[in-house]
């Protein structure tokens, strides 16, 4: 095991060279002159979106903006990178109070002040915490139900407006090859955890930050959804989940949970043989449309907070042509700026126009105080009731307990 000095040096040289190469590899392009900003997007499904994002970044002259297009588990990757100094300067995401409370994002009131009234009020509210606005909404994504006109016509059924009608329609539309309704591959769990309460006329949290759903109405709604799940008229285990319209396009189901983004794709696949309707109302409740979407933020850990804010102002406030392109040229989204939405001709006809009309009537948005841990509590409740057959009242009590516990740490 004797090694000559020369060989040893050669070996050490190799290690040093490798180390030097490794150092090159970790160059993130932030060094050098001029301001550099990194901007993160999750991977959008629609073709052309990544090229558009890169085009926008390139057109910005005051800083060198690099795009990170993140496939897979976007939220988890974002969360862990926001803990470090190497995270993004500008990123898209979903706001919750925890982000503001733990100083992950900076307030953006100053860059939006002169045009704030042009943004939809509920979008502003859903990104506000303690009176400060933390995010600029990029797109609004209404979630609703779609149905095959021909199948409903054949069965003599009108689009359901109540949950009882939805169950009846799903039963009537189920045949050997077609299921009546597709809520998702987890059956109703994710849908109900997010959207059921709004259709009972309740909210997750009251304006004074208390639990807003500890009621018999919630229990009754849970029992109703369980009835739907047990009827075996829902599609589950499809190759793709609800947000991809493939299962609907292939005729595996007659009605489906869907988002407005999918409308161009459905139209291309099956023409005009489809319509839209809002989430049906539970007893004593109301029809509802969940208005999801994406919002852009500036990281508090950014080394160039001012430059990042300037870029956000430029892209998501000043460049109205780009905002319109982002909302309407790939999938369909509602532009959050009223002036742009009003000009959007693509949203003025057909199913898109219907969706827009329903959204204005029934739309609701996320509550910034509704955190991930609370969402998990709701999903566990729904999973336990619908799939494991647990007692709805006891499960509701557990979920309420968990949410109250979270509220204590959040509100203090």
């Amino acid at each position, binding site marked *: *095991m*004797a*090694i000559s*000095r020369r060989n*040893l040096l050669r*070996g*050490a040289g190799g*290690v040093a060279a490798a180390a030097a190469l490794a150092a090159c590899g970790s160059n993130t392009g932030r060094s050098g002159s001029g301001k550099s900003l990194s901007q993160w997007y999750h991977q959008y499904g629609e073709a052309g979106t990544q090229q558009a994002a890169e085009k926008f970044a390139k057109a910005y002259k005051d800083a060198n903006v690099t795009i990170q297009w993140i496939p897979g588990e976007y*939220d*988890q990757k974002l*969360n*862990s990178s*926001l*803990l470090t100094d190497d995270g993004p300067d500008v990123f898209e995401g979903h706001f919750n109070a*925890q*982000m503001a*409370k*733990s100083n*992950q994002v900076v307030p953006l009131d100053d860059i939006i002040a002169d045009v704030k009234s042009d943004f939809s009020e509920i979008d502003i509210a859903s990104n506000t915490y303690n009176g400060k606005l933390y995010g600029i909404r990029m797109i609004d994504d209404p979630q609703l139900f779609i149905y095959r006109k021909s199948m409903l016509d054949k069965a003599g059924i009108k689009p359901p407006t109540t949950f009882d009608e939805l169950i009846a329609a799903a039963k009537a539309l189920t045949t050997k*090859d077609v299921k009546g309704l597709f809520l*998702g*591959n*987890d*059956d109703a*769990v*994710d849908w109900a*955890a997010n959207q059921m309460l709004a259709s009972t006329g309740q909210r997750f949290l009251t304006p004074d930050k208390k639990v807003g759903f500890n009621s018999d109405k919630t229990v009754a709604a849970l029992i109703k959804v369980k009835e739907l799940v047990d009827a075996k008229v829902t*599609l*589950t*285990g*499809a*190759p793709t*989940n609800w947000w991809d319209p493939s299962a609907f396009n292939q005729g*595996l189901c007659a009605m489906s949970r869907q988002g407005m983004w999918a409308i161009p794709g459905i139209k291309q696949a099956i023409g005009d043989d489809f319509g839209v309707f809002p989430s049906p109302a539970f007893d004593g409740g109301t029809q509802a449309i969940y208005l999801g979407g994406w919002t852009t933020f500036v990281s508090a850990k950014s080394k160039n907070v001012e430059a990042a804010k300037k870029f956000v102002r430029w892209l998501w406030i000043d460049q109205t042509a780009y905002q319109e392109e982002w909302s309407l040229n790939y999938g369909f989204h509602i532009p959050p700026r009223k002036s742009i939405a009003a000009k959007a001709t693509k949203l003025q006809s057909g199913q898109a126009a219907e969706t827009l009309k329903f959204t204005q009537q029934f739309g609701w948005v996320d509550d910034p105080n509704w*955190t*991930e*841990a609370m969402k*998990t509590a709701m*999903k*566990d409740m*729904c*999973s*336990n009731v619908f*799939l*494991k*057959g647990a007692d709805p009242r006891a499960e509701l009590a557990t979920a309420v307990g968990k949410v109250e516990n979270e509220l204590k*740490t959040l509100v203090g």
Partner: protein
Amino acid sequence: MRRRKARSETLTFWLFVGPFVAGMLVFVYVPILWSFTLSFFEAQSTVTPSVFVGLDNYVEMLKSGPFRDSLVTFTVFAAFIVPLTVALSLGMAVLVHRLSFARAFFRSAFFIPTACSYVVASLIWKMSIFNGVRFGLANVVLGLFGVENISWLITADPPWYWVPLVTVRLWLQLGFYMILFLAGLQRIPEELYEASYVDGASPGWQTFRHITLPQLRTTTVAVVLLTLIAAYQAFDEFYNLMPSAVNLARTPLQELYLAALSQQDYGRGSAGAMILTLLIMLATLLQGRVLGFGRKD
């Protein structure tokens, strides 16, 4: 001269070992220590916390709730998957060992799935074999016998979701453990069998029970240990097969992933990780005591 040689050997040692030790330190030991520290702090959305909370995170995780449920579920899972893996991989090893032709072929054929990634296998299981619609492979086959379509991944009563979960794990890991057993089998001296025949033993169950099994003890203990640890560390196929909102079979690691990376509560996540580590260590030590791992043959 001798001193110089010794010194150069030390240098060589560090040259080869150093990078790995450094890597271990930076990527394994520092994070473990950090996580240990975090577990005693309120670390919501930060990994440099300042509020010391003592054992609160541990209490929170061990209270009745999802994490404790997942520990129970996975003790049951381990109780099934460990004996099943041992029995099947040993059976396969014995069969392959007996072959007089094409042994290498069968050995490779059984081993190949080990090289497949858990994620890829999960996607195949989820999208083509066990999807819930009429053209899923399992449903097509069952359909021939007049069985209605089964929604494999979310049916809790009966718990069909275990069928894809257990089969994908067996398919992926049996070949590897079979190779371990094959190696063990090849080490058993032929003389032992010959001597037993002279003493009147009949080939088959009698020699298997009294010669093969005892001779394979160390291999068996190692396989039990590895499969047990793997069972508690299960993540990939559960994460990829089960719909994310559904909590039918969430592994302890998934619960930690949710706590730390989705809810950003790094304190609770770390406390859970420490509990899990402690459990695996205890199980290993206990097993060493009972089965005599590391004892000389």
